[in-house]
């Protein structure tokens, strides 16, 4: 990533989108919209002071909405370019409210609220489309109750929980526990506010609320409006304190998820959604189970699948190693339903096809190995590029020329063409680069031939 930012031959246009493409192989004219970041890229040093001071908290898409970021943000810590970006949907200043704190704290004077989108014109010989994929949205499968049961997560969400730079610092904390923990802060704020209200009365009558309340309940004092109000507020305050204690007590019992269920083929090999095999999900689940076990050695995982497809160099050995040393049990069977049991534990109902019995088992967390779905923007992009898509929405290619699209001079690589894992994406990218280079150099050869 860093190499891309530094390479003298690469013009990196992040936060940009292709708008129009005209011409043919060897001679394309492209217009690109470089969206306004409201931060001057050449001035920003990436110090992050603006993000620290920004008062607007926004859900963090990079962390699969499990964490938060600010309205002025870096997409992720090591992101290239390291420039910050202001999110125009959430920034107070850009939505007509008074703020501008980021501009005040920025020592490089990089914040520019008047920045406009730029339209760039490029002339290129070839185009490579590496548009990637989207994670299949499992809420379309009603029986898995994703989003209804908090501890049913996607493989990508679990990946963020496992990551040391993720929202939990690499601990496999359960989303239900995280939600409960997040409830402490607003409660504490509420208590502080009610304390301020009580202090007013305490000052006015020169005694503590506790003393007053004892007198009030014993009927020693006359009860006027003020006294009733004070007593009510004190009662409310006590109940808030009690709720906070109970919550804190409960949070103390929370620990990392140690009994994990991985469900394979969520959205793929399923005729309701995508009939194809996404290819990487089996290995992805095994990897996540191995890493979870590395983080917390008592972790035991069960992987439910029709079969485990470990096709690739070193993959089968990895699968066996996971079973032998990382507490993974492989169960052959498709999960019929997930329900919620006590303590927010998901209960998995499945048929063990080897034992020919239907079973139910309770887990701390369920991870859904979601399918590789075509990315949302691909249909529009295909129209702009004038290329065809296949029945699922991936870029149409031929078996014997897997990186050629239906338009000469436009090539595809990675998951934009079909589901694949990282090594395959890298191999295909090199292949597409070579095909594009043929065209880029061809124009040179043609010229030389003409001169000769």
């Amino acid at each position, binding site marked *: *990533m860093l*190499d*891309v930012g530094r*390479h003298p*031959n690469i*013009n*990196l*246009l*992040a*936060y940009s*989108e*292709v708008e129009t493409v005209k011409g043919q192989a060897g001679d*394309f004219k492209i217009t690109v919209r470089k969206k306004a*970041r409201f931060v001057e890229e050449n001035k920003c040093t990436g110090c992050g002071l603006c993000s620290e001071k920004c008062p607007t908290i926004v859900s963090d898409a990079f962390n699969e909405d499990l964490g938060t970021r600010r309205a002025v943000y*870096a*997409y*992720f810590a*090591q*992101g*290239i370019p390291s420039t910050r*970006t202001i999110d125009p949907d959430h920034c107070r200043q850009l939505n007509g409210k008074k703020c501008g704190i980021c501009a005040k704290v920025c020592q490089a004077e990089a914040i520019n609220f008047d920045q406009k989108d730029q339209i760039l014109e*490029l*002339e*290129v010989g070839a*185009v*490579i*489309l*590496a*548009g*990637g994929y989207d994670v299949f949205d499992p809420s379309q499968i009603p029986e898995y109750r994703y989003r209804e049961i908090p501890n049913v997560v996607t493989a990508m969400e679990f*990946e963020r929980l*496992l*990551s*040391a730079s993720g929202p939990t610092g690499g601990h496999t904390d359960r989303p239900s526990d995280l939600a409960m923990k997040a409830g402490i802060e607003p409660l504490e704020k509420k208590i502080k506010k009610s304390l301020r209200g009580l202090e007013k009365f305490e000052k006015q009558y020169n005694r503590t609320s506790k003393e007053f309340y004892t007198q009030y309940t014993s009927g020693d004092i006359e009860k006027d409006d003020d006294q009733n109000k004070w007593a009510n507020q004190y009662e409310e305050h006590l109940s808030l304190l009690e709720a906070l204690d109970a919550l804190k007590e409960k949070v103390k019992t929370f620990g990392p998820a140690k009994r994990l269920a991985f469900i394979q083929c969520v959205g793929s090999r399923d005729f309701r959604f995508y009939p194809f095999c996404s290819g990487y999900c089996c*290995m*992805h689940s095994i*990897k996540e189970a*191995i*890493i979870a076990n590395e983080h917390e050695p008592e972790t035991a995982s069960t992987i439910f699948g029709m079969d485990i497809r470990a096709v*690739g160099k*070193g*993959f089968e*050995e*990895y699968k066996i190693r996971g079973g032998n040393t990382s507490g993974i049990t492989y169960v052959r069977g498709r999960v019929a339903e997930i329900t919620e049991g006590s303590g927010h534990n998901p209960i998995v109902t499945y048929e063990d096809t080897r034992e020919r019995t239907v079973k139910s088992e309770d887990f701390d967390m369920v991870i859904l190995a979601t399918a590789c779905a075509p990315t949302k923007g691909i249909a529009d992009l295909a129209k702009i590029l004038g290329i065809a898509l296949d029945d699922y929405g991936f870029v149409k290619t031929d078996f014997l020329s897997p990186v050629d699209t239906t338009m000469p001079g436009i090539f595809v*690589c*990675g*998951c*934009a063409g079909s589901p694949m*894992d*990282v090594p395959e*994406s*890298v191999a295909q*990218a090199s292949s*597409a*680069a*070579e095909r*594009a*280079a043929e065209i*880029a150099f061809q*124009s040179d050869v043609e010229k030389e031939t003409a001169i000769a």
Partner: protein
Amino acid sequence: MIKDVLVIGGGIAGIQASLDLADMGIKVHLVEKLPSIGGKMAQLDKTFPTNDCAI
């Protein structure tokens, strides 16, 4: 004159294609929709089958 190449998408595939082309001496314009390149792979903690860090 050698022509430029446009690469759309700054995930692992787009990054690899851009670096290969750039190393061949071809000028590359790499367009990414999001504020940073890296794509889905940057969201991964480790990669199989070596458990290497993804970033």
